[in-house]
């Protein structure tokens, strides 16, 4: 669920309010969004991707993070690079390459029922094409 709106980072662009499919945010009197209905959050990470300044953090949990959880600590999240991690991965924002350019999904669907190609057998055997190593390092911090 959405846990953090960084008031220091937010530039009040309203994008998260517009794009959240379940209408979780409200605009505060000072123009910064607040999490008005956390219980409606469906943990889809969309707001994170759209926020241009990496001001949002969505925890991977279906319920609210408990008090004292690192998922609620803005400083910790900023320090570990968790803010904006998904946006980096999908390659949105100036100067980045769209993540879809590195999408080698066809390796993983080859030979599945109704799909072209042959299924490597065993899956982890030498028949499976090996990856080159394009693109940024996506192992994200935690």
């Amino acid at each position: 669920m959405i846990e953090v709106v960084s008031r220091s980072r937010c530039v009040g662009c309203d994008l998260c309010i517009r794009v959240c499919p379940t209408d979780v945010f409200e605009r505060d009197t000072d123009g910064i969004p607040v999490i008005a209905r956390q219980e409606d959050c469906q943990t889809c990470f969309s707001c994170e991707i759209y926020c241009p300044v990496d001001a949002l953090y969505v925890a991977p949990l279906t319920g609210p993070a408990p008090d004292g959880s690192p998922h609620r600590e803005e400083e910790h999240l900023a320090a570990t690079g968790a803010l904006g991690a998904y946006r980096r991965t999908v390659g949105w924002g100036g100067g980045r390459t769209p993540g879809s350019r590195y999408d080698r999904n066809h390796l993983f669907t080859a030979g599945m029922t109704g799909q072209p190609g042959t299924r490597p057998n065993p899956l982890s055997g030498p028949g499976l094409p090996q990856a080159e190593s394009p693109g940024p390092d996506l192992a994200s911090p935690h």
Partner: protein
Amino acid sequence: MTRPTQTGLSLDTDVMVLGGGPAGAWAAISAAEAGARVVLADKGYLGTSGAAASGGNNLWYLPEDESLRARAVADREALGGRLTDRRWMERVQTETYRQINRLAEWGYPFPRDEHGNERRSSLQGPEYMRRLRRKVHRSGVHILDHHPALELLTDADGTVSGAAGLRRQEGWTRWQARAGAVVLATGGCAFLSGAFGLNVDTGDGHLMAAELGAELSGMEFSSVYGRSPAFGNHTKGLMMQFASYYDASGRPLEAEGHKGAELIARRLAAGRPVHARLDRAPTALRQSMRQAQPNYFLPLDKAGVDPFDEAYPLRLVFEGTVRGTGGLRLLTPDCATGVPGLYAAGDVATRELVTGAASGGGSLNGAWAISSGTWAGGGAARFARNRGALPPRHNLRPAGTTALRAAPPGGHPTTRAEVDETVTTVQKEVLPLDRNYFRTADRLHTSLRTLDTLWGRLADQPAATDGRTMLRAREAAAMTAHARWMYRAALAREESRGVHRRDDRPGTAARFEHRLMVSGLEQLDVRADPVLPVLTAKGTRAARIAAGDASQERRVS
């Protein structure tokens, strides 16, 4: 065309599209290309809303190779329990191929393989839907985000003539659109289970169509659950092909293949933990795995779990008719529902024609959304054009039956607590694995008694006074109707086939090799579809190609 009214927004258009997932977006593009004025209203936001936006879509995108395509049809036909229609499958192959190639022209950043060829069979959700939104916008379509539709409007003859709903971010005022035809593209129904991106999909369109007498099909194929980390809701499954499964003490479970899926479900239904670890993933491939399915890894990364190294607990999250198969029955190649002026595309329509009894998640649903969206948009545009002038406003009739009219004197408006209780009641019948994944006649009967009683109460439920509750009340009613259709059809199909598992009727029965239609709101009716599956019969050209007998083929023809 736009005229603000005291109560909100009033519009006129040729084609009204309800829903802004891929099916709605392709329908809008197609209707606009056919020369229609188009308005598209989404409950959320065209770009982030719906199953594809967060999940992404691997596609049934096959090169123009006749034998490859024929084999793919035959394979899916078998997987789909022989309920499919080969003609529709072939059309979907052709249409998906055409439209995805256009998407490439519009700039979707596809990857290139080692030979420098673009690979176009996978769409990453946020990128896909952002591109579609741009194309929809450039096609001149009027996009209304946060405009959930509540009901359809008809003229005096019962021809669909528009829709009405709420403006969620404009003080919950009303909107009303008069239209020559309507495309429903509101997605499947996942019953607010919380599954990744699916809480917008509550079956609203099915209810709207059924209120005008539309029939549904394949509703028994609705027992699909996705695997997610136990702490989350992220039902991305493709990478789990590399998983091994363990019990709580780390002992391996024999969980391979079809039988394995059932074993996992049975364990979880019994409250026994199942853990997964991607220990069969070759090290050299791990970076590619991350790049192909970032939304599988993201929640695990955030939780500090390295799935290659550490077994994490699983749960199964219900995905209903999103990754299930059932929906509105289609009568024509351009996706008409049988209600004049009403078309359906994507998950709101039955996908049995192309996926049969098997889940369409994983390549066919996405292809279906593109193709059926394209056809429905074109069909609606033609209908609107042939129809001519829009009916006068004073002749428009709201078609909604439940939760929309003011409380009668002495009655009280529906409250949020009442609506929440409805949702909980329905969820108790459809979410548990031992009700829905593993079905028996007894349990279906028990659930239906509860659900039928519930519907009896909802049938003349008055509207709530605030918009948020009014919308949720319609969603709750839609879910109730959906659950009843599912279970009524599940009772009638006295066998197990595809994703429909009857513990009391294991195995398929030849006498059920046909589709089942279900209709009605008060009184439900189930019957065999008189239109039979069209299969790759032995001896046909397609069957010979599928069998790889191309040389023979050339001699014969």
